[in-house]
Every structure is written in structure tokens, then in C-alpha cells.
């Protein structure tokens, strides 16, 4: 009886629908816009005005476009690493902490060699940032492979630890001696900063690195043996074990890679648009990158597009806060809704929606059965 509660049912597809894999993100974005429309109308705003202000106005100028790239840079960089990890069924949700560590180690180098900069410093900072993020991600990797502890919880706990560590250092050793006791480091010298690509804007060389990361992520997944191992471990762990793939090595590799990329994103932020170490390095890029990875279908090209869209949600949040006085938390609500719709629509990839057949009616018997 209970199985007929809904007139629709889900029928498993023989193979996942390739078309739906790319259609569902579009569908999810459409549904998010529709819900946003309804939400703003319900809150008493002119929805057309708000959505225009949120999604169109911020990128209607050259400056807007460059800001979009500035925000998409860390998102794409981090999301590539997270996507590779999720492919292997490794859930690194602590990228935010790894980002902070990267900013700390990479940016710390700029502070240590303040006044003694050379052309070697910037590359060294980038490497240090990656190592910092990697070291922070090595902790969950070690705890998972050695003690079987869930990387989901350990990596997330380390976000809080990382934030507190950053707070401690900015209130002590790293604080700008001439900064009026604000918990901020001194400003980096120009030699320790990523060069700007468009003069007069904040669009820095990091955008190129992000593109390289996207390309590298594609190569890794499509063309290398470790990439193949990652996909097999994630899809069918039993087959991976049978083939002799070392699952622990895959866990280590994916966590270190995603940590390094989050660290790179962190150092690119402090050496790019920010120019110093502050407590506000990231507006949650490490968490938003999880949405980016899913929205981009864990595929590098998709991630690039998704990063731009999520960057727009940050710009839109800022814009409607200024122009319409809407709270900036709108950004989080939009991002959450988008992920919900995406996850919900994803059912279409592996299932068809079918109308339930009417339950068979007993055949009316017109004539009594006669026994010969």
C-alpha cells in the first residue's frame, strides 16, 4: 500500500545519463533563480531588481569582470583538489584551514624576509604556501590511514584550530609593530606580491596559476595512472583492492594534493588582493569550493565554470548589501540552495521518473464459471 503513496516512482537507468550529468547543473541554477525570485517577492522586495543587482550589475563593468576573476581564482584552485579527492571518496572538508595555513607559511616568508626581498622570494612563498596547506592536510591523512579516523571530522576540526592559531600569531609574533595593536601583519613589500595583470584592478597573476591548476587537474584525471587509480578506488574499492591499488596511497595523495592547492590559494590571496596577513583572509572559500566541485561535476572544465558562478554569488552578495541593504548572508543562502537543488536534480542522472502504473483491477466476471 505504502509504495503507492506517490503517483511517481524512480526507475534505475541501466547506465548513468551522460546528458543529465551536464543538464542538472543548469536545471539547478534555474531552480535557484526561481526560488530566489519567490523568496525576494515574499520578503517584499522587487525580485527582478534584486536578481539583476545580484547577478548582472556586479559584472556589468570591466572592473566587475576582473573582480569576478579575483574571486574565482581561489575557488577554482581549491575545488580542483577537492574534486580529485571526492573522486577517490576522500572528503576533505577542511580546505578552509589548509588555506589559512598556506597563507600563514607563504605570507610568513614575506614577513621574515621583509626588506631583503629578491626575485626568488615570490616563487619560494608559493612553494611555502603549498607546503603549509599540505602539512595541515597531512594530519587527517595520517589519522585516516594509520588510525582509521574519519577525515571528514578531523579535517573540519583543524579548520577551527587553524583559525585560532592564526589569531594567536596575529596577536603576537606576526603583529605589525606599527599597526596600532590591530591583529594584522605589516603590509608586504611589492616584491613579495603577485604582479597585477590588468593595471588599476586587483586581477593578479594567480588567475593564470588557477588555469594551470585546472589544466593539470584534467591531465591528472584523464591521462595519468594515479588519476586512474583514484577513480577506481572511488567507484569500486573492491576492484581497486583486487587490482592491487594501494588505497592508503590514494588517500595520502588526494589529501596532500587538495591541501597543497588550498594552501596555494591561501598564499595567492595574501600575496594578491590582500597584501598582508589578516584574520579575514577568506570569506569561506574553502567551504564554497566544495559546492564548486560538485556543481562542476568533479570535472576540471565544469569546475572552472562553477567557480565563476560562485564568485558571482560573492560579488552579488556584496552588491545587494550596498545597493539594497540586503544582508550579505544572502550569498550563503543562495549557495546552499544551489547545492540542494543540484543534489536533488542529480537523481535524474541515475534514475528515470516514471508514472506509477495503476494497480491491476480484478477482472469483472460476467458469467459464472461453468464446470463441464
Amino acid at each position: 500500500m505504502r509504495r503507492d503513496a506517490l503517483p511517481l516512482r524512480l526507475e534505475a537507468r541501466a547506465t548513468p545519463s551522460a546528458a543529465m550529468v551536464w543538464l542538472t547543473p543548469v536545471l539547478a541554477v534555474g531552480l535557484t533563480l526561481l526560488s530566489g525570485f519567490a523568496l525576494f517577492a515574499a520578503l517584499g522586495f522587487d525580485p527582478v531588481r534584486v536578481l539583476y543587482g545580484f547577478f548582472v550589475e556586479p559584472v556589468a563593468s570591466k572592473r566587475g569582470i576582473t573582480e569576478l576573476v579575483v574571486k574565482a581564482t581561489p575557488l577554482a584552485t581549491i575545488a580542483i583538489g577537492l574534486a580529485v579527492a571526492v573522486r577517490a571518496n576522500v572528503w576533505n572538508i577542511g580546505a578552509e584551514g589548509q588555506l589559512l595555513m598556506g597563507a600563514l607559511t607563504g605570507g610568513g616568508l614575506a614577513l621574515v624576509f621583509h626588506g631583503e626581498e629578491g626575485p626568488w622570494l615570490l616563487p619560494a612563498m608559493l612553494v611555502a604556501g603549498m607546503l603549509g596547506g599540505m602539512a595541515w592536510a597531512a594530519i587527517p591523512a595520517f589519522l585516516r590511514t594509520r588510525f582509521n579516523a574519519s577525515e571528514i571530522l578531523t579535517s573540519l576540526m583543524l579548520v577551527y584550530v587553524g583559525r585560532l592559531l592564526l589569531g594567536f600569531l596575529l596577536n603576537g609574533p606576526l603583529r605589525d609593530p606599527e599597526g596600532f595593536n590591530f591583529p594584522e601583519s605589516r603590509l608586504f613589500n611589492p616584491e613579495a606580491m603577485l604582479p597585477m595583470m590588468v593595471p588599476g584592478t586587483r586581477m593578479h597573476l594567480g588567475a593564470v596559476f588557477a588555469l594551470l591548476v585546472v589544466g593539470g587537474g584534467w591531465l591528472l584525471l584523464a591521462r595519468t595512472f594515479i588519476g586512474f587509480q583514484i577513480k577506481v578506488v572511488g567507484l569500486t574499492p573492491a576492484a581497486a583492492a583486487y587490482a592491487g591499488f594501494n588505497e592508503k596511497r590514494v588517500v595520502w595523495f588526494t589529501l596532500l594534493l587538495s591541501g597543497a592547492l588550498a594552501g596555494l590559494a591561501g598564499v595567492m590571496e595574501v600575496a594578491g588582493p590582500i597584501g598582508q596577513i589578516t584574520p579575514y583572509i577568506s570569506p569561506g572559500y574553502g567551504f564554497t569550493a566544495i559546492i564548486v566541485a560538485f556543481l562542476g561535476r568533479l570535472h576540471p572544465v565544469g569546475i572552472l565554470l562553477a567557480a565563476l558562478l560562485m564568485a558571482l554569488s560573492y560579488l552579488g552578495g556584496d552588491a545587494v548589501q550596498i545597493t539594497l541593504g540586503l544582508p550579505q548572508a544572502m550569498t550563503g543562502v543562495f549557495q546552499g540552495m544551489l547545492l540542494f537543488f543540484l543534489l536533488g536534480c542529480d537523481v535524474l542522472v541515475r534514475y528515470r521518473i516514471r508514472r506509477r502504473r495503476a494497480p491491476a483491477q480484478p477482472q469483472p466476471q460476467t458469467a459464472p464459471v461453468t464446470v463441464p
Partner: protein
Amino acid sequence: MIAVFDSLAPILAAMITAATPLLLAALGEVVTEKSGVLNLGVEGMMLVGAVSGFAVTVTTGSHAMGILMAACAGVVMALIFAFLTLTLLANQVATGLALTLFGTGLSALIGQGFVGTPIPRLPELNLPGLSDLPFIGPILFSHDALVYLGLAMVGAVSWFLYDTRAGLVLRAIGESHEAAHAIGFSVLGIRYLAVMFGGAMAGLAGAYLSLAYTPMWAENMSSGRGWIALALVVFATWKPGRLLLGAWLFGFVSIAELHVQGLGLRVPSQFLSMLPYLATIFVLVLISRDATRIRLNAPACLGKVFHPDA
């Protein structure tokens, strides 16, 4: 001896207070996970519960109303999760993360107008007779209604899971949804209810934060307690009684910050604030290293998608 008791009692009472939000949320999650569903959105449900409870209390002036609405808000959040994972068969890990991200944003949005609004703290309920007991009275029986509720729920959840038929069905579904389905139990129906219960408890945990623990609203005020509650469930190997011990342990760790500074030790406050998070990692490692124990205690279908027609 009396002097030691006198100085110890406030510490233990504070420990029980700090443990309450963790206990409430973790008890809800135990029931959810025992039915085979892993809801990582506790933090998000807790925040939405906290802000809803606060907003309703400010608007109506009634704590009871606020607490009720916080539980309802938790249920609504949980229903989003249940619909996506149970009806639309979405990945539970990803959906739980989405619920937390969404809840963080939504609570900030709702709470916009309430930052800095003062409200009276949820009043303490002194139990006649019990509250006057020496030592035990000030520790256990000088709290507000939600603390008592948390303690009572330990017994209630334990009784439900292990001494009732419904609890047996719920555990059976968590162990093998196919078998339970074949027998004729409504896997989805029970799981919906279990997820909703988890949401209500997370909502109450949030209400405790915003109405009693620190009577105010601040963005992200749960600061990871939802995640710690998730770790507690593993630490307790899915047993309500051990959950109480775990929650008290964490309550103790989280108040250590105040007391260590009171002792005059010059440890930077940030390092003391790290303690609950480091302790979470530590106990998680301690329990998880025994893979057999986890395998024996974790519901076998935890996190797995159930599709009856497959």
C-alpha cells in the same frame, strides 16, 4: 574536604551546562544514525534552531515558545535533508554538508535584526527537595529545563532504542534495510521520523545555546559544536549512555579555558580555545583505531542509499 567540594561543585555544574548542547544534538544524531542515515548537517540545524528560538523568544517573550519553535525549525531543516537523501536518493555526505552551509547562511539572514538584542536567560528550575541536597543539589539540580531534558533524554533514547519494539525496528532498518523492507517495514517512513527527531534535538541544542548558555544571537554561535556532536556519536560507539560520559568530558574540556586562566597559568587563550577541537580529534583517533569495534557497533547500512525497486 567541604572546601574542596565547595570549589568543585561550580566547576561540575558548569561542565554539565557546557555539555548540554552537545548531548542534545548527539542524542538526536544517534537515533538518526541508528536508522542508517548519516546526517552531517547537525551544525546547520543547530544554528537555525538557535536563531529561531531566539527570534521567537524576543518576539513573543516566551521561552517555552522559543524552545518549541527551535525544535520545529530543526525538524524543517531535517525534512529538507530527508527529502533529498531518502526520496531523491542524494548522497548523504554531500547533502549534510549542504545543509550546514545553507543553515549557516539562513541563520545569519534570519538573525540579522537580532544581533545585540538582550533577552533574559532561560530561568533555572529548582526542584523542591533535590536542589537542596548537599553537593549533588548544586551540581545536578540547579539547572534550567533544557539541561534536565537532556539528562532525561539519555534514558528515554536508550529505553526507546533497546526496550521498545519500535526501537528494534529502527535498529533493524539501520542494520539491513533490504531485510527490513522484505519483512514489510516502512524503511523510508521510519527513516524520515528518525531524521526529523535528529533535527528536533539539534534545534533544541541550538535553543540551549541562544537562550541559556549565552543568551544572545551571534552569527555562527555554535562554533563547531554540531560537528563535535557528530564525533561524540562515534566516540560513544552509538550508545546513549556513553554519550553522556562523552558530553561531560567535552563539557569539562570546553570550560577548562575559563578555569585555567583563573588559576593564573599564562597560556594564550587561543590555545585553550583549541582544546575542544583537539580533544575531538584525539578521542576520534582513540576509538577509530579499533576498526573491529567500529564495525561491530556502527549501523551496517549507515550512509547507504536505499531504493526499494532496485
